[in-house]
């Protein structure tokens, strides 16, 4: 089983300074530990809406890649967004979902359909033209550049378990300063 933080460390090597990364909850805390950037969009507010925020950003800034680091429990709350995103078909949106089968941020309880739900299949059926899934770290390392080289919307399910525990700093996540720094960085160029 891949560790989520190890996946993100590999992914981070392929993220440029112009990319926007929308990361939600547990994924967000791992991501900002691994790759600090003012273009980290970690303030999605209500659970499940990460992909919807990303769609707005992808439409608003078609000149940038928008990479979503979603969770399986979060995506289950907003499965319709897969259909919406696929329908709009932003070529610059890359949707990674960490599939750990649990509501990690809420006590580690199992998601409905744990080990049964086929997230790649759902995304494919929703209309995402390019869908992937990874459960082997070396394979992910070898193929992630190709995944990010596809025309979006792209979907990739990452079969993971929690790695090192990141600091859960909700003041950073919810603080106005983080949003202001994102806005300034986005407006800068």
């Amino acid at each position: 089983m891949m560790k989520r933080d190890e996946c993100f460390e590999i992914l981070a090597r392929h993220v440029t300074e112009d990319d926007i990364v929308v990361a939600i909850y547990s994924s967000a805390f791992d991501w900002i530990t691994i790759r600090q950037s003012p273009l980290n969009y970690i303030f999605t507010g209500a659970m499940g809406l990460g992909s919807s925020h990303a769609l707005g950003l992808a439409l608003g800034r078609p000149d940038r890649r928008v990479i979503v680091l979603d969770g399986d429990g979060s995506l289950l709350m907003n499965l319709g967004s897969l259909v919406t995103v696929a329908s709009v078909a932003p070529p610059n949106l890359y949707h990674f979902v960490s599939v750990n089968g649990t509501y990690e941020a809420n006590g580690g309880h199992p998601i409905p359909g744990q080990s049964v739900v086929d997230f790649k299949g759902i995304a494919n059926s929703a209309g995402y033209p390019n869908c992937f899934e990874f459960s082997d770290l070396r394979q992910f390392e070898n193929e992630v550049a190709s995944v990010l080289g596809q025309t979006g919307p792209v979907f990739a399910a990452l079969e993971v378990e929690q790695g090192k525990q990141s600091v859960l700093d909700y003041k950073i996540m919810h603080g106005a300063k983080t949003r202001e720094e994102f806005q300034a960085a986005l407006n800068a160029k």
Partner: protein
Amino acid sequence: MIEPLTRTDDRLRGSSIIAAVKSAGINIVLSVPDIWTSKGLLFPIADDEELRLIRVCKEDEAVGISAGLFFCGQRAISLVQSTGLLDSLNAMRAMGLQYKQPICMLVGLLGKEPDVAPRDSKNVGVSIIEPVLDAMGITHHLVDSEADIPKIRPAIDAAYEKPEPLILLIGRRPDAS
């Protein structure tokens, strides 16, 4: 925020609402269809070359999309039914109130009786809307006739300037004219 009805004007043109929304710099509309506004607003918006219509599956998606667009300097508005507004309240709580984003919505008050103030409606789906918004501290205005059209642009501009969320309640079925 309480706006008692003081008139009996029975016309509300969809074209007037659309023109006011466009004059406020809105160029994207996010919508789940609502029979209250279907003919007078959604069909004309779908045909309007100056507006991009994005059909979403569930109303709270529109809140997230609007927030992303806001950071990119683009103005959007959602067109939903009052039921959809109620379904979106947690997203509005987070993005509109906690993060102070200008999430703007046109909300069809399905079942509001003519010349009855929304909170006096016999339809509970209508009567609770303004009290709920008041309890959350969300600015709202009733658009019930042509006389209310001049409210729209200033209200949207104010929402973006502050910034804060805004709900425009569509009190009667707009004409498709």
